[in-house]
């Protein structure tokens, strides 16, 4: 049997909006992934450490506070520092289109903005996970 894809759904920063994170987490679980949800207020260090401890294939971050340009790239860099070069990092939330190229350049594989069906997130992960 194929190994199940392990996903860490994370809420970096101080943002308390977790409706999206929880809905996505559940949709990923229903799609057959193993999902770990961090809960609120995780520092980039905590997220990277949890990714390492849980040995995940995917880190999916949700942020609606506007701090994505600071926090997403920080998580990507910390994952690399820990040698987790194969982890697929995706993000979502209230993120202006103009910020997406910069986030992708920083190593976020895809950014899902409001209105994205959860099925698209599932498909993206399945096609891009290493």
């Amino acid at each position, binding site marked *: 049997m194929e190994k199940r894809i392990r996903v860490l759904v994370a809420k970096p*920063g*101080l*943002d*308390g*909006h*977790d*409706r999206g994170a*929880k*809905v996505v*987490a*559940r*949709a990923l*679980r229903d799609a057959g992934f193993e*999902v770990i*949800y961090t*809960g*609120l*207020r995780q*520092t980039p260090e905590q997220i990277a450490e949890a990714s390492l401890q849980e040995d995940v294939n995917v880190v999916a971050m949700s942020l609606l*506070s*506007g*701090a994505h*340009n*600071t*926090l997403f790239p920080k998580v990507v860099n910390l994952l690399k520092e820990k040698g987790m070069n194969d982890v697929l990092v995706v993000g979502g939330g*209230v993120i*202006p*289109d*103009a910020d997406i190229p910069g986030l992708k350049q920083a190593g976020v594989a895809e950014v899902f*903005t*409001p*209105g994205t*069906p*959860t*099925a698209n997130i599932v498909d993206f992960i399945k096609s891009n996970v290493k």
Partner: protein
Amino acid sequence: MANETLKAKMQAYTAKVEKSLEKFPERKNLAHNRLYTPLDVEGFDYERDLSFPGEFPFTRGVQPTMYRGRFWTMRQYAGFATAEESNKRYRYLLEQGQTGLSCAFDLPTQIGYDSDDPISEGEVGKVGVAIDSLADMEILFDSIDLGKVSTSMTINAPAAVLLAMYIAVAEKQGVAADQLNGTIQNDILKEYAARGTYIFPPKPSMRLITNIFEYCSKNVPNWNTISISGYHIREAGSTAAQEIAFTIADGIAYVDAAIKAGLNVDDFAGRLSFFWNAHNNVLEEVAKFRASRRVWAKVMKERFGAAKPKSWMLRVHTQTAGSMLTAQQPENNIVRVALQTAAAVLGGTQSLHTNSKDEALALPTEDSVRIALRTQQIVAYESGLADVVDPLAGSYYIEALTNKIEEECWNYIKKIDELGGAVVAIEKGYIQKEIQESAYKWQMEVEQKQRIIVGVNQFQIKEKPVEGLMRVDASVGEMQKKKLADLRAKRDNAAVKEKLAALENAAKDEKTNLMPFILDAVKVYATLGEVCGVLRKVFGEYEAHVSL
């Protein structure tokens, strides 16, 4: 038997339309019946169920005159970047005819951290204004007469600190505390359940809240000491009935806590206020507002034995549903907000914030905020919706739906009572779980197109990225850090140390009201982070219950 005839006619109607409606299966399973008749309001008793506006059970509104006197307060939630920037936005909104202020604070402020705390990195000034000390608060209200304006502050865990700063700024303007009008949100239970900006565990949090009730009843008598909020519960995905049920359950917990602390219910209950969401389904929302007033009036009169009519009234601020704004074809949001405004006004709100069309994408620009405010003004002055008190009363549908939502609300309250009250229900994760279930169900309905969201899952177009969005200057964090360094160098640090030590001692004694100590500390320019730091040390921090 008139009813028997009616029942027979209704059956005949149903049989007839069900046949022809077979062609429209997608409209078959809506939440409400297709037609309402007198059969749906059997036993309806005008005096008992509705009575007159301003009279128990306040189904028709809390004031006798409603909008035939004054319109609701038009109060746009605003705040971003620095106190200087936000002060400019407030003055602009007041010039445009807004009648009250509503302050949005950034996340570090809401969670009790200074802008120079490492955990604040990236968040300073983003979702609201950064307030680190009384010095920022003085700038925020510069040239705004606090004796004339009413101010609502969306602040919860550190509500006591921001209220103290507001009182201190007013004092400097020469306005006494008993002349101040406004609201602090101060509703920690929904932070645990839905919004996430908690700091301390429930017990000391409830103490801070009752300390505020007591302090304000004596010193700031016109202040709304809490805004018990369903808004965020709804935004997190609840249904309309869950929104008011969980919120009223929270309200019961606050009243219980205050009574346990020795307060007389009629001394503080008149200053409790509520906060509802105005969602998309206009008539369901109207029924929700009406049902909520009836439930709260019964809770206060019958459960808590409050004697003053003021204690029975559910006064409410409303905000249109942010989560219903779409990032796709954002101009459509103007229409959504107009309908939500209609719901809030037909529901009898006391004040209203209307969202701006661009808020699924970013903070709103000045132009889009103006359209949102104009939407309220158009509804108020042009639509006629505000001309008659509770104009939908007596509609078979509205009354039946009001009854139904009330019943669902009582069922939840009973269930939460059985669990041991709202605090326990939240600690056990019950309320969070109920909200998550509804949120997931909604999302699946959208994805399976059982629920159509225009521009999102139907009627899409190819769109260019939206231009001209507001951006918060990235230098705000650095500016606040510099202001803080200057403040710490200039202020009387011995006095700060002394007042913080006094606060720490007071916090250790459960019987002491902390408000005077917090006021003393902020007046010598102790920072928000320092004050909350002392309280964190004594109270500890809340550990969230997480389950999927």
